[in-house]
């Protein structure tokens, strides 16, 4: 039983955490792609920017969360989402819109976004330094230990406060996004534009407004993902940047341009990572006596070492694309 708890802690909980962050990140990437048709590389640094705003706000108003019984960082999140949404709209106005007006090829937009990512990262480093800072400025990280009521189970299931908040916010964002896309007229207009922008304009849909709305949503989601990641680990200017490639892998695995696909892709990639580095030898331990000696004494039975974790999403990406060339969900339009 202790082994099972170990499995839950290291695979179920850890996989859900990674999966949630990948999922929210990939939704942002996929939304930009479905509306503007380019791979937005600056997404990870928008995540960092969101987390940085939370850090600044938390330092500015310490103790604000205590009144509500939540970490101050979480209380500051809505404000940071607004600021990041503003940044996203601003970046689009200054960098992407003039390019779009010239009708450039998507690859030019991709390179521009690469420029934006370096610029954002440099700016954040300039103010935040390069070392890690905890987002828990004034309060401390709660850790919940859930003891199981079984005989002989010593180890508890461990979930930290930021992880719980992460699960709640992930579910809330997914449900909210679904309602928005399927119910609201604006969401339907987004679907229309991602399907056929010319026809959307000829049908009276204000495509400039749709682009702005997309950036607001993308900025907000980026702030959520970046903040939750930094809450779980610590704030670092390059933390989200290193997740950029797995997030893209998740978006493509799910079917690029498809928000539900991105969510599925995020969890598939997240769980694949944790399952691949999990030491399966632990689960065999209770059956040690009945196993052949070579198996019983094997030390580490993980598929890959932790240092090769980053390889897993890409292996999975290739494998899934061979099986389904457009991703798990059929990609391209919302």
């Amino acid at each position, binding site marked *: 039983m202790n082994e099972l708890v170990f499995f839950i802690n290291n695979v179920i909980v850890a996989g859900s955490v990674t999966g949630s962050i990948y999922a929210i990140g990939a939704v942002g990437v996929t939304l930009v792609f479905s509306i503007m048709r380019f791979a937005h590389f600056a997404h990870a640094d928008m995540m960092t920017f969101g987390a940085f705003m939370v850090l600044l706000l938390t330092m500015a108003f310490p103790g604000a969360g205590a009144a509500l019984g939540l970490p101050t960082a979480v209380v500051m999140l809505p404000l940071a989402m607004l600021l990041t949404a503003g940044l996203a709209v601003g970046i689009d106005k200054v960098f992407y819109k003039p390019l779009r007006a010239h009708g450039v090829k998507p690859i030019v937009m991709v390179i521009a976004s690469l420029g934006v990512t370096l610029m954002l990262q440099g700016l954040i480093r300039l103010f935040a330094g390069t070392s890690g800072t905890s987002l828990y400025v004034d309060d401390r990280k709660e850790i919940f230990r859930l003891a199981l009521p079984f005989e002989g189970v010593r180890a508890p299931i461990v979930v930290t406060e930021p992880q719980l908040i992460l699960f709640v916010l992930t579910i809330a964002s997914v449900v909210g996004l679904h309602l928005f896309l399927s119910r*609201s007229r604006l969401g*339907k207009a987004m679907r229309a534009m991602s399907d056929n922008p010319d026809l*959307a*304009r000829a*049908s*009276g849909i204000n495509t400039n407004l749709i682009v702005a709305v997309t950036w607001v949503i993308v900025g907000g989601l980026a702030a959520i993902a970046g903040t939750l990641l930094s809450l779980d680990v610590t704030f670092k200017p390059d933390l989200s940047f290193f997740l950029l490639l797995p997030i893209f892998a998740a978006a493509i695995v799910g079917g690029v341009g498809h928000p539900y696909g991105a969510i599925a892709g995020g969890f598939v990639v997240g769980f694949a990572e944790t399952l691949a580095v999990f030491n399966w030898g632990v689960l065999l331990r209770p059956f040690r006596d009945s196993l052949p000696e070579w198996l019983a004494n094997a030390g580490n039975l993980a598929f890959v070492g932790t240092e090769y974790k980053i390889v897993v999403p890409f292996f999975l990406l290739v494998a899934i694309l061979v099986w389904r060339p457009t991703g798990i969900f059929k990609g391209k339009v919302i």
Partner: protein
Amino acid sequence: MASMIDVQHVNKAFGGLRVINDCSLSVESGSITGLIGPNGAGKSTLFNIIAGALPLDSGQVLLEGEDITNRPANELFHKGLLRTFQIAHEFSQMTALENLMMVPTAQAGESLFNAWLKPGLVRSQETEVRRRALEVIDFIGLHHVRNELAGNLSGGQKKLLELGRTMMTDARVVLLDEIAAGVNRTLLGDLVTNIERLNREMGYTFLVIEHDMDMIARLCDPVIVLAQGSVMVEGSIEEIQNNPEVIEAYFGASQDATT
């Protein structure tokens, strides 16, 4: 009669190719005006300029006297200027019915506020829009495929859907770009009847690009002939058909040599 659309001295070049060359024309309010011309005459380009899909190099476009030069297509839509596309456009991932239901404007669901806080109002409008969409889809004879994805429809059916789109809202002027191409004869008769009815009963003005001369002859008066980016002649279909300049433009100079 007052003019609905005025095109004044419009020029447009793609690179070194001058497609529209100091073109001026006007479409009278309440008319069904035909726009014909040999391939490459600039008909579709002119359409795209009027409809706000292409920026022009110089000149002016007026809609009932109001300057609409280089206004985006979605703004023109709200002013009552609608268009169809030469190669039928559709929202491929939505059903035929949903395609039509995308069109109507100023629905309550458009604003986020209403979508969240007044679901009842949104729903009753949706019902109204759906009712109208069902009527339109009956009319254009696509009732049996209304729940199919529009991307899976045939070329002719997509053309019909294009026409259906313009019937979902109260337009003032509709630009039809080769609506008859790929549509079968029987259906074509219905289309013409329908266009005439919209013109007579609803006061729609039409500007029609068409290669099908029978359809032009049945439907359009006056007819404008475009050649090399500017207006060559304008008049009734009989005048056009007997005009030696037009014959030359269509059939080439060799026609003279044989006569």
